């Protein structure tokens, strides 16, 4: 229907319609993004809410009533505290080891030209594109053939293995934007290679190394599949959750999950805010 044939009143209404259509079109994307973010946070809200639940039975699936007990006694449930401690120990040790090994590889790849760098890149890349279940299964095959008993040590070995690639990729990204003239300047001022590395290079790439270590820590503490294949009778926190999912889900699991979430997000939030402030000062 063309505007010429429509009555004046109808034209006004059409204007309103068109305006609201335009409003809709302009904000459609924002609305969609808001919905997507809500979808991302919906389960997290459930996790946090149910950490305050007072479940009637062994399963924490339906809302029964509010209580602070779970938060006051997060380790009341037998086995939970021990599992969390093992997870943290493995996460600390594996992220430290993987950060050292991975940073050295990243330094070699970015700073030097050498025969075999292509092969090295491939070797770093393939574990990232291999399904976790295949990584876990292959390590299991290795330990079975070598007769290595599975436990804390095999989990640690596995976590260092899958973390190396992530560290290399993260540190490499930081090193790529690195200004080599700063090192040359230090050397011109008669610093030797070691002094240059520790006084110039290392401080400059430190943020990248820290980011890589945090990523490795997060990946390690959350890993289930690879750990599951190589844990023997050792129980990490994710394995504890898995085991309890079949017999009983205590609300303390939600408490610990919320704690890990708050600590991780709090840390990242601080770093984002600090970076923004520093950027603001520099500008």
């Amino acid at each position, binding site marked *: 229907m063309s505007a010429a044939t429509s009555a004046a009143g109808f034209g006004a209404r059409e204007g309103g319609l068109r305006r609201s259509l335009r409003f809709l079109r302009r904000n459609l994307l924002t609305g*969609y*993004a808001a919905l997507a*973010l809500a979808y991302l946070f919906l389960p997290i809200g459930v996790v946090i809410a149910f950490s305050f639940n007072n479940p009637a039975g062994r399963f924490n699936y339906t809302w029964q009533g509010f209580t602070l007990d779970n938060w006051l006694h997060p380790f009341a449930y037998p086995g939970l505290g021990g599992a969390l401690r093992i997870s943290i120990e493995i996460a600390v040790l594996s992220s430290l080891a993987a950060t050292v*090994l991975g940073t050295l590889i990243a330094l070699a790849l970015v700073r030097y030209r050498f025969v075999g760098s292509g092969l090295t890149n491939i070797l770093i890349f393939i574990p990232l594109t291999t399904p976790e279940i295949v990584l876990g*299964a292959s390590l299991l095959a290795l330990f079975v053939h070598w007769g290595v008993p599975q436990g804390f040590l095999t989990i640690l070995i596995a976590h260092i293995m899958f973390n*190396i690639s992530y560290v290399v990729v993260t540190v490499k990204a930081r090193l790529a934007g690195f200004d080599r003239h700063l090192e*040359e300047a230090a050397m011109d001022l008669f610093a030797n290679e070691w002094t240059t590395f520790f006084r110039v290079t290392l401080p400059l790439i430190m943020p990248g190394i820290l980011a890589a270590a945090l990523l490795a820590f997060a990946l390690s503490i959350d890993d289930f599949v690879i750990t599951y294949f190589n844990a023997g009778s050792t129980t990490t926190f994710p394995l504890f*959750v898995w085991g309890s999912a079949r017999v009983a*889900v205590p609300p303390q699991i939600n408490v610990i999950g919320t704690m890990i979430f708050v600590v991780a997000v709090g840390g990242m939030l601080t770093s984002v805010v600090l970076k923004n402030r520093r950027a603001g000062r520099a500008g």
Partner: protein
Amino acid sequence: MRLLRHRRGATPYLLLAPGLAWLAVFFVVPMYYLGRTALERGLFPFFTFNWAWSNFSESMSLYHTQFVRSLEYAGIATTIALLVSYPLAYWIAFRGGRWKNLLLLLVIAPFFVTYLIRTLAWETILSDGGLVTRTLRDLHVLGADGRLLATSTAVIAGIVYNFLPFMVLPIYVSLEQVDARLIEAAEDLYASPWRAFLRVTLPLSLPGVFAGTLLTFIPAVGDFINAQLLGTPRQYMIGNVIQSQFLALRDYPTAAALSFTLMAAILVAVGVYARLLGTDRLTGAVSR
């Protein structure tokens, strides 16, 4: 230049040695043993190596249903994840302004809740007495005794959710690099915003789409947690089979053969996908 000459020789190899040795011993060698196990015969714990290639055909004829289902679920989940992620990444990259970093943090934050706990939360949300199921029943989308939990819908929904940041982040990175002047130029030449998007922004963001789909599809196809917690044996994927063959039934050769077939299938799928999307266009977009 003095610096570079100074640093030739053994140094890079010394730097590489410890890390690469670790990967060699605990990634490459295990792959060899996985392959070896796939060609063994016997009953736990007595397996003997005898080039049993038939393990591959036998395991496939037994479990091809789960295999095809894995590819199907992962394919659907990857497509949905792309549809959810692209507008979100686009909105953050072009409308985020100075909140970009904070918004990105919001996207990643949910994934600092342990994978299994997140999935258990979905179990709560989709449960029979839950709000979602009851609403859908009231709207007659579901029958009076229709369920969400224990269906393929629940499993696919769980996979979409759990691998979403792997899709959002690469797309965001590639959109972030798009030169806004190119879009302006297209609009100056009377392209409608939609046309400018289709002809300029979308092609330039394809490398991110490519990376995101791979990073989502690969873990999705090997996943077994979502099928286990949100589904029933009727929704089990190849990951469930490999897991139970290895850890419960202790039929190592079958499990190893299935793992290898899975890897081969992924390689083929990635190859076909790269060909379809056009690798030269992808690399072209990257180098530009």
